[in-house]
C-alpha cells in the first residue's frame, strides 16, 4: 500500500437534514483512490443519504464533499462517477440490452461495450429480456451493468448485493476488487457484515455519525473481537455505555 494514498473522496463536516430531522450530524472522512470502502450501518442510519451526498443528488445543510478534487455532483464529475441506486434504476419497459446500451450511449460508448458489461455481471443469457420481467437480483445486476459500462473512476453502490445469491455476490465482490486494483475508487454500502472483510476500509454509520473509520484488521485488533460483527457490537455498546 502506498504511504499516503491520495483521497478520491473527501468529506468534511457534512450535515444533512431531511424533513427537519438531522440525518447526518457532521461527518468527516477521506476515501483513498483505488480502494474499496465499505459503508456499514443499520437501516435508517443515513447510509443512502451519505451516498447521495457523494454523488451530488442530496441537498446538504452544511459541510463539503469533494470527489476527485471537484465539488460532488459538479459537471466534470458526471463523466467520471457512476452511481448504482438501492432500487435498480432501470427502465422496466426496455430490455436489459436496451437499458445498458442507453446509458452507454450517454457516454459515447457503443453496443459492444454494453454487451461486455452485461456479460460481466452474468446477464448475458438474459440480455433480450424485458427488465420489468427480471428477478430482483437480475434487476440489480442490470443496474450495475449500466454503471460498469462507463468504466467510472469512482463507483458508488448502495446495497448492491441485497437479495443476490452467494455465488453471484462472491463474483461481484471479486469484480469490485478488480476495479479497485485497476485504480477505481469504490464506496459500497451494505448491512451484511461478512462483506465488510472484503473492504480496505470500513465506515460504520450510526445515528448520523461515523463510530468507526478504520481497516477491518485494525477494527478487530482495537476491539479485541474475533470478527467484525462482534467488533461493531463492541463499539456500539461502548458508545451507549458512555452516554
Amino acid at each position, binding site marked *: 500500500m502506498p504511504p499516503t494514498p491520495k483521497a478520491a473522496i473527501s468529506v468534511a463536516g457534512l450535515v444533512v437534514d*431531511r*424533513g427537519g430531522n438531522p440525518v447526518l450530524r457532521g461527518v468527516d472522512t477521506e476515501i483513498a483512490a483505488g480502494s474499496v470502502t465499505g459503508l456499514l450501518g443499520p437501516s435508517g442510519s443515513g447510509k443512502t443519504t451519505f451516498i447521495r451526498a457523494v*454523488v*451530488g*443528488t*442530496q*441537498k*446538504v445543510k452544511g459541510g463539503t464533499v469533494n470527489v476527485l478534487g471537484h465539488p460532488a*455532483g459538479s459537471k466534470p464529475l*458526471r*463523466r467520471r*462517477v*457512476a*452511481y448504482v*441506486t438501492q*432500487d*435498480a*434504476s*432501470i*427502465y*422496466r*419497459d*426496455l430490455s436489459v440490452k*436496451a437499458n445498458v446500451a*442507453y*446509458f452507454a*450511449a*450517454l*457516454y*459515447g460508448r457503443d453496443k459492444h461495450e454494453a454487451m461486455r458489461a452485461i456479460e460481466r455481471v452474468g446477464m448475458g443469457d438474459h440480455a433480450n429480456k*424485458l427488465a420489468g420481467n427480471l428477478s430482483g437480483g437480475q434487476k440489480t445486476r442490470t443496474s450495475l451493468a*449500466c454503471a460498469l459500462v462507463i468504466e467510472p473512476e469512482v463507483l458508488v453502490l448502495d446495497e448492491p448485493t441485497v437479495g443476490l445469491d452467494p455465488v453471484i455476490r462472491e463474483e461481484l465482490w471479486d469484480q469490485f476488487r478488480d476495479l479497485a486494483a485497476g485504480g477505481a475508487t469504490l464506496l459500497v454500502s451494505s448491512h451484511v457484515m461478512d462483506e465488510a472483510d472484503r473492504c480496505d476500509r470500513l465506515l460504520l454509520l450510526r445515528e448520523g455519525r461515523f463510530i468507526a473509520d478504520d481497516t477491518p484488521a485494525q477494527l478487530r485488533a482495537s476491539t479485541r473481537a474475533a470478527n467484525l460483527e462482534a467488533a461493531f457490537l463492541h463499539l456500539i455498546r461502548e458508545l451507549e455505555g458512555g452516554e
Partner: protein
Amino acid sequence: MSVRITFITAGRILRQLLGDHRTVGLILAVPALIIALISAIMDDAPQVFAQVGLILLAAFPFMLMFMITSITLLRERTGGTLERLMTTPTGKLDLVVGYGIAFGTAAAAQTAVAATVAFAFLGLETAGPTWAVFLICIVTALLGMALGLFVSAFATTEFQAIQFMPVFVIPQLFLCGLIWPADQMAGWLQGVSDALPLTYAVKALTEVRTNAEVTDAMWGDLAIVFGAVVVATVLGAATLRRRTN
C-alpha cells in the same frame, strides 16, 4: 445542452413507447375512431362537423400528450431513473427536449392517421392547406406535452397525475371554442378563454378553415401557442432538480 444526448434520449423514449404495442395501437386508432363517431353523430350538420371535427384533430394529441408525458415523467421521478440521469452528462434540457422530440413524433403519427381518415373518408374540409392543419396539430400536441411535463412535478403518484387532467386540460377544452364559440361566452369567460393557450390553437385552425391562403393571423396565433410551449417547457425543466431531499 447536447444535441447528441437529446437524440439518444428521444430514441430511448420512443423505444419504450414502441415496445408497448397496445399503447401504440390506442394512440394511432382512437382519435380517428372518435372523430368518425362525431362525424356520424353530426351527419345532418356537416358545417358543425367542419368546426368540431377540425378542433378535435388538434384536441386529441393535446390531451394524449399531456397524459403520457405526465405519467412517463412521473415514472422517471419515482422510479429513480431521473436521479440516476442527473448524475450522468444528461442536461435537463436534453431530457425535456428529448421528450419533446419523441412524443412530438408520436403526435405526428397520430395526427397523420386521424387527419387522413377525417379528410379522405369523413368529408372534413378546410379552405386552407392541409399542411397548416398538420402543423397546428403538432404544435398543440407539444403544448400538451409541455404542460404534462410541468404538472408531473406536482404529482407524487400516477393516480394524482391523472387527476390533473380535469384541472389543466378539460377547462381549456371547454373554453377554447370546442363546445361553444368563445365570442358567445360571458365577458369574463372570454377573458379566461383568451388567457388559455389552447384557444389560440383553435383560432389558428379557424383561420385555416375559412381562408384559402395562410394568413398572418394564423401565424400569430400559432406563435402564441408555440410561445406557451417554450414557457411550459422551461418551467417543466426547472422542476427537474439535480439535488433533492
